[in-house]
């Protein structure tokens, strides 16, 4: 389990990036839902926590690939591979993330611990 932050510190519409390996992005949508996915776009190295969230979708800030926050699936190219989705739990007012055990789809040239 990774500790993200107190729920009170992540307002609706905000996102944070966890310095895990690989990094994880946690989103609190305008609609009040919490989602956690891999932070690194599967196309090229960019942080999805810096992206644009609309509804249940985040758009990569670099090349506008779109990922579904619920499924991790690609809704718009150039990305081809999905990001992993992680379980979010709020425990005593703190956002916790249980990391998926699947293999992450990192972009070419990027390894779990950063650049090759």
């Amino acid at each position, binding site marked *: 389990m990774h500790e993200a932050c107190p729920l009170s510190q992540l307002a609706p519409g905000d996102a944070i990036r966890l310095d895990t390996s690989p990094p994880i992005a946690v989103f609190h949508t305008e609609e009040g839902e919490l989602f956690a996915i891999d932070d690194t776009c599967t196309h090229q190295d960019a*942080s999805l926590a*810096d992206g644009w969230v609309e509804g249940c979708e985040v758009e990569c800030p670099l090349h506008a690939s779109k990922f579904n926050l619920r499924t991790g699936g690609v809704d718009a190219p*150039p990305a081809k591979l999905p990001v992993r989705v992680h379980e979010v739990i709020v425990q005593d007012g703190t956002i916790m993330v249980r990391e998926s055990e699947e293999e992450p789809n990192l972009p*070419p040239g990027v390894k779990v611990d950063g650049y090759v």
Partner: protein
Amino acid sequence: MQTLVVIGASLSGLSAARAARAQGFAGRLVIVGAELHPPYDRPPLSKDFLAGRISEADLALSEVDDDLAAEWLLGVKAVRLDTESMTVALSDGRSLAADGVVLATGASARVLPEVDGCSNVFTLRTLDDARALRGQLQPGRKMVVVGAGFIGAETASTARAAGLDVTVIERSAAPLSGALGAEMGAAVAGLHAAGGVDMLCGTSIKSFRILGGSVSHVVLDDGRELPADIVLVGVGGQPNTDWLLGSGIQLGNGVLCDAAGRTNIPSIVAVGDCAAWWNHRLQAHHRVEHWTGALERPALAVAALLQGGTVPRAVHPPYFWSDQYGSRIQFAGHVHGHDRVQVEHGCLEDQSFLAVYYAGDEPVAVLGVNQVRQFTRWRKFLNREAERYADAPAGAFAAAS
């Protein structure tokens, strides 16, 4: 429409082909590409690919499951377009009859005639260019980069990281000044100095000393002589439109189009680096040489070609990014016509800032350096603003040209 021929197999040509299928075109689709390679992504050529971090396979743009049902003619150039009979003559002697044509021939790297052909002089535009240059990046070698645009600046950054001694020569007062304006170009120049690259702005080349078919020294207008093991020429691109001379297609700086990519000839549209679309804001034809334009705009042009009539969606302002010395530079909008630049977040000294370009009270462009999140918000704002221009007529060609 029975047969749609796309001339050009890079990002804009591929995007046009995908858009045609996505919009329901079920006829014969032919894609002609001058390079032998299937479509590949060019931006990494000066960055991760040149640095050896990613492979050629990683550059592939098309997927095996791309259900384009297209005929690919690769390694073949279009040499003539007959707009009366709507036929395209190819370099292998064949000719293609078409009902609709998408011109997506891109641009070529400009060369310096006096050193063209020298064995240690390179340009960087194609995969073959990048392969050739990649083999040259050995630590300790001296590289002189001519031009501090995107290719020059990014290649300098990559070469420096690979351990070369790099000097960049730029005629204007700051790097990227054409794209960012002089003031912000100067702010970004600090990245080069911090990265350990000599950036000589306001400097011209007087001559080259050539020895045994390769450049040994670059001689500057102030008399300095820079020894060079490698010379990279990054002085911009020119649209690949010579083959259209005399075809009846109107040409200027690129193929002249209306605001939806239509040329003066019915059933022929142009997209990507070869195309100069009418821009309502600038009231001029404007050739956009950026990746995002090549990705997004073909869908508009194909809609105009297949459906005719008005085009419902607005063209987003040009957007580009550049990675240099570990910093991420992003820009959206039109620098043209701004009268001031205001730093809204961060500060220039920290190499982390967001600057907004204003024409009067109207924000017309935004630059972010290591400010991805703020930049994204501003870019979205500019995109929405641009939709105000969507109601303007897509433009009778006559009125636009």
